[in-house]
Protein backbone atom coordinates (compact mmCIF):
# COMPACT_ATOMS: atom_id res chain seq x y z
CA UNK A 1 0.00 0.00 0.00
CA UNK A 2 2.79 2.37 1.00
CA UNK A 3 4.72 1.52 -2.16
CA UNK A 4 1.60 1.95 -4.30
CA UNK A 5 0.96 5.39 -2.86
CA UNK A 6 4.63 6.30 -3.08
CA UNK A 7 4.79 5.55 -6.79
CA UNK A 8 1.89 7.91 -7.44
CA UNK A 9 2.12 10.63 -4.79
CA UNK A 10 5.65 10.49 -3.37
CA UNK A 11 3.87 9.66 -0.14
CA UNK A 12 7.05 9.04 1.90
CA UNK A 13 8.31 12.59 1.28
CA UNK A 14 4.96 14.03 2.34
CA UNK A 15 4.84 11.94 5.51
CA UNK A 16 8.46 12.72 6.27
CA UNK A 17 7.84 16.47 6.00
CA UNK A 18 4.92 16.11 8.42
CA UNK A 19 6.39 13.77 11.00
CA UNK A 20 10.17 13.83 10.87
CA UNK A 21 11.07 17.18 12.32
CA UNK A 22 12.64 17.84 15.72
CA UNK A 23 10.69 19.55 18.48
CA UNK A 24 12.35 21.33 21.42
CA UNK A 25 12.31 19.74 24.86
CA UNK A 26 10.11 19.97 26.80
CA UNK A 27 7.15 19.97 24.43
CA UNK A 28 4.29 21.98 25.93
CA UNK A 29 0.73 20.70 25.68
CA UNK A 30 -0.24 24.33 25.07
CA UNK A 31 1.20 23.86 21.58
CA UNK A 32 -1.47 21.23 20.86
CA UNK A 33 -4.45 23.55 21.39
CA UNK A 34 -4.92 24.21 17.68
CA UNK A 35 -5.02 20.49 17.00
CA UNK A 36 -7.46 20.00 19.89
CA UNK A 37 -9.71 22.71 18.41
CA UNK A 38 -9.72 20.87 15.08
CA UNK A 39 -10.60 17.65 16.86
CA UNK A 40 -13.60 19.35 18.49
CA UNK A 41 -14.59 20.77 15.10
CA UNK A 42 -14.64 17.23 13.72
CA UNK A 43 -16.79 16.12 16.66
CA UNK A 44 -19.12 19.07 15.95
CA UNK A 45 -19.31 18.07 12.29
CA UNK A 46 -20.19 14.46 13.13
CA UNK A 47 -22.78 15.32 15.80
CA UNK A 48 -24.10 18.18 13.64
CA UNK A 49 -24.74 15.82 10.73
CA UNK A 50 -26.48 13.39 13.09
CA UNK A 51 -28.65 16.18 14.51
CA UNK A 52 -29.50 17.36 11.00
CA UNK A 53 -31.06 13.97 10.28
CA UNK A 54 -33.67 14.61 12.98
CA UNK A 55 -33.96 18.41 13.15
CA UNK A 56 -36.68 20.31 11.26
CA UNK A 57 -35.65 23.92 10.57
CA UNK A 58 -39.05 25.58 10.78
CA UNK A 59 -40.61 27.85 13.39
CA UNK A 60 -43.51 25.45 13.84
CA UNK A 61 -41.50 22.22 14.12
CA UNK A 62 -37.96 23.02 15.28
CA UNK A 63 -38.62 22.95 19.02
CA UNK A 64 -40.80 19.85 18.75
CA UNK A 65 -38.15 18.03 16.71
CA UNK A 66 -35.53 18.71 19.39
CA UNK A 67 -38.00 17.64 22.07
CA UNK A 68 -38.55 14.36 20.23
CA UNK A 69 -34.80 13.94 19.88
CA UNK A 70 -34.35 14.41 23.61
CA UNK A 71 -36.84 11.66 24.29
CA UNK A 72 -34.23 9.11 23.22
CA UNK A 73 -31.05 8.68 25.29
CA UNK A 74 -28.79 8.59 22.23
CA UNK A 75 -30.45 11.64 20.65
CA UNK A 76 -30.18 13.59 23.88
CA UNK A 77 -26.52 12.58 24.29
CA UNK A 78 -25.61 13.62 20.74
CA UNK A 79 -27.24 17.02 21.29
CA UNK A 80 -25.41 17.42 24.60
CA UNK A 81 -22.07 16.62 22.95
CA UNK A 82 -22.83 19.15 20.20
CA UNK A 83 -23.82 21.83 22.70
CA UNK A 84 -20.84 21.21 24.99
CA UNK A 85 -18.63 20.95 21.93
CA UNK A 86 -19.56 24.51 20.96
CA UNK A 87 -18.39 25.70 24.39
CA UNK A 88 -15.22 23.61 24.21
CA UNK A 89 -14.43 24.99 20.77
CA UNK A 90 -14.80 28.60 21.90
CA UNK A 91 -12.58 28.01 24.94
CA UNK A 92 -9.93 26.07 23.02
CA UNK A 93 -9.77 28.55 20.16
CA UNK A 94 -9.40 31.44 22.64
CA UNK A 95 -6.64 29.66 24.57
CA UNK A 96 -4.96 28.75 21.28
CA UNK A 97 -5.03 32.43 20.29
CA UNK A 98 -3.60 33.50 23.66
CA UNK A 99 -0.85 30.90 23.42
CA UNK A 100 0.10 32.04 19.91
CA UNK A 101 0.10 35.63 21.15
CA UNK A 102 2.28 34.79 24.15
CA UNK A 103 4.73 32.91 21.94
CA UNK A 104 4.69 35.81 19.44
CA UNK A 105 4.08 33.20 16.77
CA UNK A 106 2.09 35.71 14.70
CA UNK A 107 5.26 37.56 13.73
CA UNK A 108 7.16 37.16 10.47
CA UNK A 109 7.05 34.72 8.68
CA UNK A 110 3.69 33.49 10.07
CA UNK A 111 1.45 36.50 9.41
CA UNK A 112 -0.84 34.60 7.04
CA UNK A 113 -1.29 31.72 9.48
CA UNK A 114 -2.39 34.24 12.11
CA UNK A 115 -4.73 35.98 9.64
CA UNK A 116 -6.41 32.69 8.78
CA UNK A 117 -6.64 31.96 12.51
CA UNK A 118 -8.57 35.20 13.02
CA UNK A 119 -10.98 34.13 10.26
CA UNK A 120 -11.37 30.76 12.03
CA UNK A 121 -12.06 32.56 15.33
CA UNK A 122 -14.76 34.74 13.74
CA UNK A 123 -16.20 31.65 12.02
CA UNK A 124 -16.31 29.79 15.35
CA UNK A 125 -18.13 32.66 17.08
CA UNK A 126 -20.50 32.86 14.09
CA UNK A 127 -21.23 29.13 14.36
CA UNK A 128 -22.06 29.49 18.05
CA UNK A 129 -24.24 32.54 17.45
CA UNK A 130 -26.25 31.00 14.62
CA UNK A 131 -26.52 27.64 16.37
CA UNK A 132 -28.02 29.27 19.44
CA UNK A 133 -31.30 30.07 17.64
CA UNK A 134 -31.83 26.63 16.13
CA UNK A 135 -33.58 24.89 19.08
CA UNK A 136 -36.18 27.68 18.81
CA UNK A 137 -36.55 28.02 22.57
CA UNK A 138 -36.99 31.22 24.57
CA UNK A 139 -33.30 31.53 25.35
CA UNK A 140 -32.21 31.18 21.74
CA UNK A 141 -35.03 33.29 20.33
CA UNK A 142 -34.45 36.32 22.55
CA UNK A 143 -30.64 36.04 22.52
CA UNK A 144 -30.81 36.10 18.72
CA UNK A 145 -33.25 39.02 18.78
CA UNK A 146 -30.91 41.05 20.99
CA UNK A 147 -27.76 39.85 19.20
CA UNK A 148 -29.01 40.82 15.75
CA UNK A 149 -30.40 44.13 17.10
CA UNK A 150 -26.84 45.18 17.98
CA UNK A 151 -26.09 45.47 14.26
CA UNK A 152 -28.60 48.35 14.08
CA UNK A 153 -25.91 50.55 15.63
CA UNK A 154 -23.71 50.27 12.52
CA UNK A 155 -23.78 53.78 11.04
CA UNK A 156 -25.98 54.39 7.98
CA UNK A 157 -26.69 50.77 7.02
CA UNK A 158 -27.40 49.33 10.50
CA UNK A 159 -31.16 48.83 10.10
CA UNK A 160 -30.66 47.21 6.71
CA UNK A 161 -28.01 44.85 8.09
CA UNK A 162 -30.43 43.76 10.81
CA UNK A 163 -33.12 43.04 8.21
CA UNK A 164 -30.67 41.04 6.10
CA UNK A 165 -29.63 38.99 9.14
CA UNK A 166 -33.23 38.37 10.16
CA UNK A 167 -34.63 38.15 6.65
CA UNK A 168 -37.25 40.63 7.84
CA UNK A 169 -37.90 43.14 10.59
CA UNK A 170 -38.25 40.57 13.37
CA UNK A 171 -36.83 37.17 14.21
CA UNK A 172 -39.21 34.79 12.46
CA UNK A 173 -39.24 31.40 10.81
CA UNK A 174 -37.44 33.04 7.87
CA UNK A 175 -34.61 33.98 10.26
CA UNK A 176 -34.43 30.40 11.48
CA UNK A 177 -34.05 29.09 7.92
CA UNK A 178 -31.37 31.69 7.23
CA UNK A 179 -29.44 30.90 10.40
CA UNK A 180 -29.72 27.18 9.70
CA UNK A 181 -28.18 27.48 6.23
CA UNK A 182 -25.45 29.84 7.47
CA UNK A 183 -24.70 27.50 10.39
CA UNK A 184 -24.75 24.28 8.39
CA UNK A 185 -23.19 25.39 5.13
CA UNK A 186 -21.75 28.87 4.86
CA UNK A 187 -19.73 29.01 8.07
CA UNK A 188 -18.74 25.35 7.96
CA UNK A 189 -17.41 25.75 4.42
CA UNK A 190 -15.70 29.01 5.41
CA UNK A 191 -13.98 27.26 8.31
CA UNK A 192 -12.81 24.40 6.12
CA UNK A 193 -11.54 26.80 3.44
CA UNK A 194 -9.63 28.82 6.04
CA UNK A 195 -8.44 25.76 7.94
CA UNK A 196 -6.80 24.02 4.97
CA UNK A 197 -4.15 26.73 4.34
CA UNK A 198 -3.89 27.44 8.11
CA UNK A 199 -2.86 23.83 8.67
CA UNK A 200 -0.72 23.69 5.53
CA UNK A 201 1.24 26.79 6.60
CA UNK A 202 1.92 25.22 10.01
CA UNK A 203 3.25 22.09 8.29
CA UNK A 204 5.26 24.09 5.82
CA UNK A 205 6.80 26.54 8.29
CA UNK A 206 6.74 24.39 11.43
CA UNK A 207 5.64 25.68 14.81
CA UNK A 208 7.44 28.79 15.98
CA UNK A 209 8.80 26.78 18.92
CA UNK A 210 10.98 24.84 16.47
CA UNK A 211 12.58 27.93 14.87
CA UNK A 212 15.52 28.05 17.25
CA UNK A 213 16.28 24.36 16.71
CA UNK A 214 16.10 24.71 12.95
CA UNK A 215 18.52 27.65 13.07
CA UNK A 216 20.89 25.71 15.33
CA UNK A 217 20.75 22.72 12.98
CA UNK A 218 21.61 25.00 10.05
CA UNK A 219 24.60 26.30 11.98
CA UNK A 220 25.73 22.69 12.21
CA UNK A 221 25.14 22.37 15.97
CA UNK A 222 24.15 19.08 17.53
CA UNK A 223 20.52 19.47 18.62
CA UNK A 224 19.85 15.91 19.71
CA UNK A 225 20.24 16.58 23.42
CA UNK A 226 17.71 19.43 23.46
CA UNK A 227 15.17 18.04 21.02
CA UNK A 228 12.98 15.05 20.42
CA UNK A 229 11.46 13.77 17.21
CA UNK A 230 7.88 14.75 16.40
CA UNK A 231 7.16 11.12 15.58
CA UNK A 232 6.56 9.25 17.78
CA UNK A 233 7.29 11.31 20.93
CA UNK A 234 5.28 14.49 20.33
CA UNK A 235 2.67 12.90 18.08
CA UNK A 236 1.66 10.48 20.83
CA UNK A 237 1.51 13.28 23.41
CA UNK A 238 -0.78 15.13 21.02
CA UNK A 239 -2.99 12.08 20.64
CA UNK A 240 -3.14 11.72 24.41
CA UNK A 241 -4.17 15.36 24.76
CA UNK A 242 -6.94 14.88 22.19
CA UNK A 243 -8.09 11.81 24.05
CA UNK A 244 -8.29 13.77 27.31
CA UNK A 245 -10.21 16.59 25.59
CA UNK A 246 -12.57 14.03 24.06
CA UNK A 247 -13.11 12.30 27.41
CA UNK A 248 -13.75 15.68 29.09
CA UNK A 249 -16.34 16.46 26.40
CA UNK A 250 -18.15 13.15 26.85
CA UNK A 251 -18.04 13.42 30.64
CA UNK A 252 -19.46 16.96 30.50
CA UNK A 253 -22.22 15.82 28.13
CA UNK A 254 -23.02 12.91 30.45
CA UNK A 255 -22.95 14.76 33.76
CA UNK A 256 -24.62 17.95 32.55
CA UNK A 257 -26.85 17.06 29.60
CA UNK A 258 -28.12 19.96 27.56
CA UNK A 259 -31.67 20.96 28.45
CA UNK A 260 -34.32 22.49 26.25
CA UNK A 261 -36.11 25.64 27.45
CA UNK A 262 -39.68 26.66 26.83
CA UNK A 263 -40.64 27.04 23.16
CA UNK A 264 -39.87 30.43 21.62
CA UNK A 265 -42.65 32.88 22.39
CA UNK A 266 -42.27 36.07 20.34
CA UNK A 267 -45.02 37.63 22.51
CA UNK A 268 -43.04 36.78 25.66
CA UNK A 269 -46.17 36.17 27.70
CA UNK A 270 -44.18 34.80 30.64
CA UNK A 271 -41.92 37.86 30.73
CA UNK A 272 -38.74 35.96 30.08
CA UNK A 273 -35.68 38.20 30.53
CA UNK A 274 -33.31 37.77 27.57
CA UNK A 275 -29.75 36.67 28.27
CA UNK A 276 -26.87 35.94 25.93
CA UNK A 277 -24.62 32.89 25.66
CA UNK A 278 -21.86 33.00 28.29
CA UNK A 279 -19.15 34.08 25.83
CA UNK A 280 -21.11 37.27 25.18
CA UNK A 281 -21.52 38.03 28.90
CA UNK A 282 -18.57 40.42 28.75
CA UNK A 283 -20.23 42.60 26.11
CA UNK A 284 -23.61 42.18 27.84
CA UNK A 285 -22.11 43.49 31.07
CA UNK A 286 -20.15 46.25 29.37
CA UNK A 287 -23.39 47.70 28.02
CA UNK A 288 -24.60 48.19 31.59
CA UNK A 289 -21.57 50.34 32.40
CA UNK A 290 -21.57 52.39 29.21
CA UNK A 291 -23.62 55.59 29.18
CA UNK A 292 -26.41 55.28 26.59
CA UNK A 293 -24.79 57.81 24.26
CA UNK A 294 -21.75 55.56 23.93
CA UNK A 295 -23.75 52.42 23.08
CA UNK A 296 -22.70 52.56 19.41
CA UNK A 297 -19.09 52.52 20.59
CA UNK A 298 -19.68 49.48 22.82
CA UNK A 299 -21.73 47.52 20.30
CA UNK A 300 -20.01 48.37 17.02
CA UNK A 301 -16.89 50.41 17.73
CA UNK A 302 -15.16 48.08 20.18
CA UNK A 303 -15.86 44.85 18.25
CA UNK A 304 -14.69 46.58 15.05
CA UNK A 305 -11.52 47.80 16.78
CA UNK A 306 -10.96 44.30 18.19
CA UNK A 307 -11.21 42.74 14.72
CA UNK A 308 -8.94 45.40 13.16
CA UNK A 309 -6.34 44.91 15.91
CA UNK A 310 -6.48 41.12 15.60
CA UNK A 311 -6.24 41.17 11.80
CA UNK A 312 -3.47 43.76 11.75
CA UNK A 313 -1.52 42.55 14.79
CA UNK A 314 1.47 41.10 12.88
CA UNK A 315 1.88 44.46 11.14
CA UNK A 316 1.01 46.75 14.07
CA UNK A 317 3.48 45.04 16.40
CA UNK A 318 6.85 46.23 15.11
CA UNK A 319 8.85 44.69 17.93
CA UNK A 320 10.80 41.82 16.29
CA UNK A 321 11.52 40.02 19.57
CA UNK A 322 9.67 36.87 20.55
CA UNK A 323 10.90 36.71 24.13
CA UNK A 324 8.21 37.64 26.66
CA UNK A 325 10.62 39.80 28.67
CA UNK A 326 11.36 41.89 25.63
CA UNK A 327 7.67 42.47 24.88
CA UNK A 328 6.46 44.12 28.11
CA UNK A 329 3.95 46.51 26.50
CA UNK A 330 2.27 43.92 24.27
CA UNK A 331 1.95 41.41 27.11
CA UNK A 332 0.81 44.03 29.65
CA UNK A 333 -1.93 45.33 27.32
CA UNK A 334 -3.07 41.78 26.49
CA UNK A 335 -3.10 40.78 30.18
CA UNK A 336 -5.15 43.85 31.03
CA UNK A 337 -7.66 43.11 28.24
CA UNK A 338 -7.99 39.44 29.17
CA UNK A 339 -8.37 40.25 32.88
CA UNK A 340 -10.94 42.94 32.07
CA UNK A 341 -12.95 40.59 29.84
CA UNK A 342 -12.75 37.82 32.47
CA UNK A 343 -14.05 40.23 35.13
CA UNK A 344 -16.89 41.44 32.89
CA UNK A 345 -17.79 37.83 32.03
CA UNK A 346 -17.86 36.96 35.73
CA UNK A 347 -20.07 39.96 36.48
CA UNK A 348 -22.31 38.97 33.58
CA UNK A 349 -22.60 35.47 35.04
CA UNK A 350 -23.68 36.93 38.37
CA UNK A 351 -26.40 39.08 36.87
CA UNK A 352 -28.13 36.63 34.55
CA UNK A 353 -31.35 35.12 35.85
CA UNK A 354 -30.68 32.11 38.05
CA UNK A 355 -32.98 29.78 39.89
CA UNK A 356 -34.33 31.78 42.79
CA UNK A 357 -35.76 30.69 46.08
CA UNK A 358 -39.32 29.58 45.54
CA UNK A 359 -40.21 29.01 49.16
CA UNK A 360 -39.47 31.13 52.19
CA UNK A 361 -35.97 30.81 53.64
CA UNK A 362 -36.10 31.31 57.40
CA UNK A 363 -32.45 32.19 57.97
CA UNK A 364 -31.37 33.58 54.63
CA UNK A 365 -27.83 34.31 53.56
CA UNK A 366 -27.20 37.51 51.58
CA UNK A 367 -24.88 35.83 49.11
CA UNK A 368 -26.87 32.64 48.63
CA UNK A 369 -30.48 33.86 48.78
CA UNK A 370 -30.78 37.65 48.62
CA UNK A 371 -28.17 38.78 46.06
CA UNK A 372 -29.52 36.42 43.33
CA UNK A 373 -32.98 38.01 43.70
CA UNK A 374 -31.58 41.51 43.20
CA UNK A 375 -29.31 40.35 40.35
CA UNK A 376 -32.29 38.71 38.67
CA UNK A 377 -34.99 41.27 39.17
CA UNK A 378 -33.50 44.64 40.03
CA UNK A 379 -30.04 45.41 38.65
CA UNK A 380 -31.30 45.95 35.09
CA UNK A 381 -32.50 49.35 36.35
CA UNK A 382 -30.78 49.64 39.74
CA UNK A 383 -27.37 48.46 38.51
CA UNK A 384 -24.11 50.30 38.27
CA UNK A 385 -25.53 52.94 35.97
CA UNK A 386 -28.59 53.84 38.06
CA UNK A 387 -28.85 56.19 41.04
CA UNK A 388 -29.81 53.45 43.48
CA UNK A 389 -27.50 50.45 43.33
CA UNK A 390 -28.66 46.97 44.19
CA UNK A 391 -25.76 45.07 42.68
CA UNK A 392 -23.58 45.11 45.83
CA UNK A 393 -24.19 44.65 49.54
CA UNK A 394 -23.04 48.23 50.20
CA UNK A 395 -25.50 49.55 47.62
CA UNK A 396 -28.39 47.51 49.02
CA UNK A 397 -27.85 48.60 52.61
CA UNK A 398 -26.90 52.22 51.84
CA UNK A 399 -30.53 53.31 52.16
CA UNK A 400 -34.07 51.89 52.14
CA UNK A 401 -33.12 49.02 54.49
CA UNK A 402 -33.55 49.31 58.28
CA UNK A 403 -31.82 46.27 59.82
CA UNK A 404 -34.19 44.48 62.19
CA UNK A 405 -37.23 46.34 60.90
CA UNK A 406 -38.44 44.97 57.58
CA UNK A 407 -41.90 46.52 57.60
CA UNK A 408 -40.55 50.07 57.86
CA UNK A 409 -37.86 49.48 55.24
CA UNK A 410 -38.65 51.28 51.99
CA UNK A 411 -37.26 48.31 50.07
CA UNK A 412 -39.96 46.02 51.52
CA UNK A 413 -42.68 48.62 51.01
CA UNK A 414 -41.68 48.87 47.35
CA UNK A 415 -41.58 45.15 46.62
CA UNK A 416 -44.87 44.54 48.44
CA UNK A 417 -46.63 47.45 46.73
CA UNK A 418 -47.40 49.28 50.01
CA UNK A 419 -45.48 52.12 48.42
CA UNK A 420 -46.28 52.67 44.75
CA UNK A 421 -45.13 52.01 42.13
CA UNK A 422 -44.52 48.40 43.07
CA UNK A 423 -41.15 46.95 42.18
CA UNK A 424 -39.87 45.43 39.97
CA UNK A 425 -41.48 47.79 37.49
CA UNK A 426 -43.09 46.28 34.43
CA UNK A 427 -42.49 42.74 35.65
CA UNK A 428 -44.37 40.25 37.73
CA UNK A 429 -44.08 41.10 41.47
CA UNK A 430 -41.68 38.96 43.51
CA UNK A 431 -43.25 35.78 44.82
CA UNK A 432 -44.51 35.77 48.41
CA UNK A 433 -41.68 33.35 49.28
CA UNK A 434 -39.06 35.74 47.88
CA UNK A 435 -40.59 38.75 49.67
CA UNK A 436 -40.71 36.86 52.96
CA UNK A 437 -37.09 35.74 52.50
CA UNK A 438 -36.00 39.38 52.07
CA UNK A 439 -38.07 40.33 55.13
CA UNK A 440 -36.42 37.55 57.15
CA UNK A 441 -32.99 38.72 56.06
CA UNK A 442 -33.71 42.30 57.18
CA UNK A 443 -35.26 41.01 60.41
CA UNK A 444 -32.02 39.10 61.10
CA UNK A 445 -30.04 42.34 60.82
CA UNK A 446 -29.46 42.50 57.01
CA UNK A 447 -26.03 40.90 57.44
CA UNK A 448 -23.45 40.46 54.71
CA UNK A 449 -23.37 36.69 55.21
Amino acid at each position, binding site marked *: MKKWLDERLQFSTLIASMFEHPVPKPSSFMDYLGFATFFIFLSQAITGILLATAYIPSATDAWESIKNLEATPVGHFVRSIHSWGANFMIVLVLFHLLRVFYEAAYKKPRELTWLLGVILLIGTIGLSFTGYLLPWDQQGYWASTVGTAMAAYVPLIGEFVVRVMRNGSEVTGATLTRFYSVHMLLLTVLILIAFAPHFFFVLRQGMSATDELTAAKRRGENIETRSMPFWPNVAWRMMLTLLLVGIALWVAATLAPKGLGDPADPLNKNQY*IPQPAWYFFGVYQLLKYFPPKLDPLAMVGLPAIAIIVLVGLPWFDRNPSRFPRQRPIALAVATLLVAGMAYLTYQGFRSVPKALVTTTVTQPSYKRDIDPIFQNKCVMCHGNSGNYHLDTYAGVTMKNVIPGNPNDSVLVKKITGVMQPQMPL*GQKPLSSGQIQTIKNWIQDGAKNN
Partner: protein
Amino acid sequence: MQTKNTTKVPRRRFFKWGVGVISGAMGLGYLGLAGSYLWPPPENTEPLEKVGSVKDFPQGIPTMVSYQGVGVKEGVYVTNLGNGNWLALDFHCTHLNCPVAWSQSSKKYFCPCHGGIYDINGNVLGGPPPHPLPRRVIQQQGDNVMVGGRLT
Protein backbone atom coordinates in the same frame (compact mmCIF):
# COMPACT_ATOMS: atom_id res chain seq x y z
CA MET B 1 4.19 38.24 -47.10
CA GLN B 2 4.32 39.40 -43.49
CA THR B 3 1.01 40.47 -41.90
CA LYS B 4 0.84 43.33 -39.47
CA ASN B 5 -1.00 42.93 -36.15
CA THR B 6 -1.22 46.59 -35.33
CA THR B 7 -4.90 47.03 -36.23
CA LYS B 8 -6.15 43.62 -35.13
CA VAL B 9 -6.42 42.25 -31.61
CA PRO B 10 -3.94 39.38 -31.25
CA ARG B 11 -5.50 35.99 -30.60
CA ARG B 12 -3.93 35.53 -27.18
CA ARG B 13 -5.07 38.93 -25.97
CA PHE B 14 -8.53 38.27 -27.38
CA PHE B 15 -8.80 35.07 -25.34
CA LYS B 16 -7.37 36.72 -22.25
CA TRP B 17 -9.91 39.52 -22.40
CA GLY B 18 -12.71 37.24 -23.48
CA VAL B 19 -12.17 34.78 -20.64
CA GLY B 20 -11.72 37.65 -18.18
CA VAL B 21 -14.92 39.42 -19.23
CA ILE B 22 -17.05 36.28 -19.28
CA SER B 23 -15.65 35.11 -15.91
CA GLY B 24 -16.30 38.55 -14.44
CA ALA B 25 -19.83 38.58 -15.80
CA MET B 26 -20.51 35.11 -14.38
CA GLY B 27 -19.04 36.12 -11.04
CA LEU B 28 -21.28 39.17 -10.95
CA GLY B 29 -24.17 36.93 -11.96
CA TYR B 30 -23.62 34.66 -8.96
CA LEU B 31 -23.29 37.70 -6.71
CA GLY B 32 -26.56 39.02 -8.13
CA LEU B 33 -28.29 35.70 -7.50
CA ALA B 34 -26.98 35.65 -3.92
CA GLY B 35 -28.06 39.25 -3.43
CA SER B 36 -31.59 38.60 -4.66
CA TYR B 37 -31.87 35.57 -2.37
CA LEU B 38 -30.53 37.35 0.68
CA TRP B 39 -32.31 40.69 0.11
CA PRO B 40 -34.85 41.04 2.92
CA PRO B 41 -38.56 41.46 2.16
CA PRO B 42 -39.81 45.06 1.85
CA GLU B 43 -40.58 46.86 5.10
CA ASN B 44 -43.96 48.00 6.36
CA THR B 45 -46.05 46.12 3.85
CA GLU B 46 -47.94 44.03 6.40
CA PRO B 47 -51.68 44.05 5.68
CA LEU B 48 -54.26 45.43 8.11
CA GLU B 49 -55.40 42.71 10.45
CA LYS B 50 -58.17 42.67 13.04
CA VAL B 51 -56.74 42.55 16.57
CA GLY B 52 -59.98 43.06 18.52
CA SER B 53 -63.16 45.03 18.93
CA VAL B 54 -63.41 48.55 20.34
CA LYS B 55 -64.85 47.20 23.61
CA ASP B 56 -61.68 45.14 24.15
CA PHE B 57 -59.66 48.30 24.68
CA PRO B 58 -60.49 50.39 27.74
CA GLN B 59 -59.63 54.03 27.23
CA GLY B 60 -56.14 55.09 28.29
CA ILE B 61 -54.87 51.60 29.14
CA PRO B 62 -52.43 50.01 26.70
CA THR B 63 -53.46 46.46 25.88
CA MET B 64 -51.13 43.86 24.43
CA VAL B 65 -52.39 42.19 21.27
CA SER B 66 -50.79 39.80 18.85
CA TYR B 67 -50.46 40.49 15.16
CA GLN B 68 -49.96 37.43 12.98
CA GLY B 69 -46.75 38.26 11.14
CA VAL B 70 -44.64 36.06 8.88
CA GLY B 71 -44.34 32.79 10.77
CA VAL B 72 -44.63 34.32 14.24
CA LYS B 73 -46.98 36.45 16.28
CA GLU B 74 -45.81 40.03 16.80
CA GLY B 75 -46.43 41.90 20.04
CA VAL B 76 -48.25 45.23 19.72
CA TYR B 77 -49.56 47.52 22.46
CA VAL B 78 -52.84 49.14 21.43
CA THR B 79 -54.11 52.19 23.30
CA ASN B 80 -57.57 53.65 22.92
CA LEU B 81 -56.91 57.38 23.22
CA GLY B 82 -60.63 58.25 23.05
CA ASN B 83 -62.65 60.17 20.46
CA GLY B 84 -61.77 57.60 17.81
CA ASN B 85 -58.03 58.12 18.27
CA TRP B 86 -55.81 55.07 18.57
CA LEU B 87 -52.16 54.32 19.11
CA ALA B 88 -50.35 51.09 18.24
CA LEU B 89 -46.79 50.58 19.48
CA ASP B 90 -44.40 47.77 18.62
CA PHE B 91 -43.39 46.12 21.90
CA HIS B 92 -39.68 45.82 21.09
CA CYS B 93 -37.43 48.22 23.00
CA THR B 94 -35.45 50.38 20.58
CA HIS B 95 -32.26 49.76 22.54
CA LEU B 96 -31.76 46.06 21.79
CA ASN B 97 -35.26 44.82 20.93
CA CYS B 98 -36.04 43.24 24.30
CA PRO B 99 -39.80 43.01 24.94
CA VAL B 100 -41.14 45.96 26.94
CA ALA B 101 -44.01 45.56 29.42
CA TRP B 102 -46.65 48.10 30.45
CA SER B 103 -46.91 48.87 34.16
CA GLN B 104 -50.36 50.20 34.94
CA SER B 105 -49.34 51.29 38.45
CA SER B 106 -46.65 53.65 37.17
CA LYS B 107 -48.21 54.21 33.75
CA LYS B 108 -44.97 53.55 31.94
CA TYR B 109 -43.43 50.93 29.68
CA PHE B 110 -40.36 49.20 31.11
CA CYS B 111 -37.69 47.16 29.42
CA PRO B 112 -36.29 44.37 31.62
CA CYS B 113 -32.90 44.17 29.90
CA HIS B 114 -31.20 47.51 30.49
CA GLY B 115 -33.87 49.59 32.21
CA GLY B 116 -35.35 51.54 29.29
CA ILE B 117 -38.49 53.52 30.26
CA TYR B 118 -41.16 54.93 27.91
CA ASP B 119 -44.32 56.94 28.49
CA ILE B 120 -47.76 55.85 27.26
CA ASN B 121 -47.04 57.37 23.84
CA GLY B 122 -43.82 55.42 23.51
CA ASN B 123 -41.55 58.43 24.10
CA VAL B 124 -38.28 57.69 25.94
CA LEU B 125 -38.31 58.78 29.59
CA GLY B 126 -35.08 57.14 30.72
CA GLY B 127 -32.46 54.48 30.15
CA PRO B 128 -30.52 53.70 27.00
CA PRO B 129 -33.20 53.54 24.23
CA PRO B 130 -32.17 55.86 21.39
CA HIS B 131 -35.66 56.24 19.86
CA PRO B 132 -39.34 56.13 20.86
CA LEU B 133 -41.15 52.81 20.50
CA PRO B 134 -41.96 52.24 16.81
CA ARG B 135 -45.54 53.09 15.86
CA ARG B 136 -47.66 50.82 13.73
CA VAL B 137 -50.58 51.56 11.45
CA ILE B 138 -53.88 51.37 13.35
CA GLN B 139 -57.41 52.01 12.15
CA GLN B 140 -60.89 51.66 13.59
CA GLN B 141 -63.21 50.17 10.99
CA GLY B 142 -66.70 50.10 12.45
CA ASP B 143 -66.37 48.07 15.63
CA ASN B 144 -63.13 46.45 14.53
CA VAL B 145 -59.66 47.60 15.51
CA MET B 146 -57.19 46.92 12.72
CA VAL B 147 -53.38 46.96 13.00
CA GLY B 148 -50.86 46.98 10.14
CA GLY B 149 -47.12 47.42 9.57
CA ARG B 150 -44.77 49.95 11.08
CA LEU B 151 -45.16 53.64 10.29
CA THR B 152 -42.04 55.04 8.67
